[in-house]
């Protein structure tokens, strides 16, 4: 048990809110200091993302894939698996959904069936990529953190090639596959804004992750495996639980890719994941690996992105400035962890980093002798 568990939930939430609030103050300082037109910049950053229903709906739509990745990251982090492959998992998911739609378009399949198959294909693709890392760790002790990153990089290169070269739409001036026919896109909820069923779908994903973690035996086993692998082994929890959490994490990353293709983008475009996996991981850490707290955190990230985008269009800010605020929120949340903080799962990251080599041995020792915990 860490201090974080002893602290009441409300005080942890307050600490997180404080960290996000401080990040916003920083954003205001940046917008005012970096721009030659501070008032315009402040308006662009803070107000324009909420200036119209259209802007607000777009902000929500852009938060959807981040939330799906974050829900997945929560599952993996709770199990103590550092899934750094969210970006690649989203990329293979995007490709799989686009390929599924292209394959089904000539068959005239019903939209419900086509979308369900596309989402399923995406989740499967992401799950397989993540499972490879989990299985490799079970087999060899090779750390998930490193293999998930390497496999993700390889997958991104392969997806870039597929989308930008092999399956690229002929005659298109974009490095992209053909557009998804309107009938097969996720239903638009508030045209003309981009808001689609991706938003409720990602919310459902977060709620399912929450239910699995809080309300099921699997959730308890994930939690125990994440806290102490030796103890988990000693009480008979299979290492498969950790692999399962990692695989589910990949499925949600893949789903995020499909939400991009069938939702806001409407097609698979080279490089389209654009950091959604990393954003999801950051959101999960800021939310203390709680899928429900990930909802406001994902919206917060989407707001920062929208603010920075507007700041670069209306005023003279950098569109990448949102990264500074995201980093500040991460630093503040984890530094706020002094008194028992938000990144409770992250805390085991450092100790795992310390014992990374030994983590493999522990696995081996666990298999060989049962565990002495």
């Amino acid at each position: 048990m860490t201090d974080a568990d002893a602290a009441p939930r409300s005080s942890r939430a307050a600490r997180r809110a404080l960290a996000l609030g401080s990040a916003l103050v920083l954003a205001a300082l940046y917008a005012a200091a970096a721009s030659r037109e501070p008032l315009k910049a402040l308006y662009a950053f803070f107000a324009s993302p909420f200036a119209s229903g259209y802007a607000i709906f777009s902000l929500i739509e852009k938060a959807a894939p981040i939330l799906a990745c974050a829900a997945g990251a929560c599952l993996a982090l709770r199990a103590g698996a550092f899934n750094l492959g969210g970006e690649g998992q989203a990329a293979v998911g995007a490709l799989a959904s686009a390929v599924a739609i292209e394959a089904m378009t000539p068959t005239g399949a019903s939209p419900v069936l086509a979308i369900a198959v596309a989402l399923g294909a995406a989740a499967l693709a992401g799950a397989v990529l993540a499972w490879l890392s989990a299985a490799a760790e079970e087999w060899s002790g090779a750390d998930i953190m490193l293999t998930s990153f390497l496999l993700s990089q390889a997958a991104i290169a392969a997806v870039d090639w597929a989308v930008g070269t092999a399956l690229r739409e002929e005659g298109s001036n974009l490095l992209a596959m053909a557009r998804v026919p309107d009938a097969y896109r996720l239903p638009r909820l508030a045209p003309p804004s981009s808001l689609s069923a991706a938003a409720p779908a990602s919310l459902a994903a977060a709620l399912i992750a929450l239910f699995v973690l809080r309300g099921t035996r699997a959730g308890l086993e994930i939690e125990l495996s994440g806290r102490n692998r030796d103890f988990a082994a000693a009480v008979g929890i299979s290492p498969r639980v950790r692999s399962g959490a990692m695989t589910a994490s990949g499925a949600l990353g893949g789903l995020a890719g499909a939400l991009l293709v069938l939702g806001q983008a409407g097609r698979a475009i080279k490089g389209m994941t654009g950091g959604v996996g990393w954003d999801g991981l950051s959101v999960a850490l800021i939310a203390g690996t709680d899928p429900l707290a990930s909802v406001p955190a994902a919206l917060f990230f989407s707001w920062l992105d929208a603010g920075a985008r507007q700041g670069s269009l209306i005023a003279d800010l950098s569109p990448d400035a949102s990264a500074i605020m995201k980093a500040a929120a991460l630093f503040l949340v984890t530094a706020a962890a002094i008194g028992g903080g938000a990144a409770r799962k992250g805390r085991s990251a450092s100790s795992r980093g310390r014992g990374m080599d030994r983590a493999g041995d522990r696995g081996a020792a666990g298999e060989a002798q049962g565990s002495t915990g």
Partner: protein
Amino acid sequence: MSADMIADLAASTLGAAAPIAAAALGGLFTATAGSLSVALEGSILVGAFAAAAVGQAGQSLALGMAAGALAGALLSLLVATAAIALRADVFVAGLAANVLAPGAASAISQAVFGTKGVLPAEAIAVGAAPSASIGRSILDQGPAFYALVGAVILLAVAHSKSVFGLRVRASGEGEDAARAAGISPDRYRFAAHLVSGAASGLAGAALACGVAAFVPGMSAGRGWIALVAVYLGGRKPAGVALACLLFGFLLALSNLAQGLSSQAASGAELLQAMPYLATAIAFVLWKRRERQARSGTAHRGANGPIA
């Protein structure tokens, strides 16, 4: 395969391996100090940016390299302060630094130079590129490359032979013993972070020299590859350097193959996946072998629970 081609391959292997090796040997200090930094990627990027910006402003390669190392160290100072002074989680703090680096580089670039994209820096374009480009001999690598080789040798020797290196390792391996010997483990962990940041920053500076510019995203995962090399190399300097050479070779091979197949371009891009995939496979097989070797030996109760 002609002799020229082999020479090219060897040259680009060294060129591709050098920046990764510098970052990896820096990272090795944090890994063995017991406070693994995952911020190498961010330090490489800010190092590249600072080298281009300062090197161009001062019209000096040496100044650019120094600025790169300093910028990398500054970013790791942030990580070390959060992780050690403020007891934040070192993984999250490192991740935050990696998120910060591209944002900070872009914002500064926009505010100071009015460009958010490529920042040209002809002044640091002295010598050839420490990158896997084709068509030069092994020794014709330019001063930035030799600075990296010097740093790699210095770090390797410091890690295994110096008192500082010994104390860093003691801080990670036997924290209590280190304390009993009057060493403050936290102080050496802090120093290890600074070393890793400076080494990664230097690596980034060399990358910027290679293309005579700062290009957003130019770290391109090298910081993470460096971390893999730390573990693939068994957390020993020679092993780490070898792991970097392996990855450099794979990268050079992939680039060479892409160059050769440029006429039939369709599949060439796919080759970019190869170095990562091959490294992942090598890493998994190596860990498997290590596990098998160890499960043969007597039982190991001495590790104690780590999680």
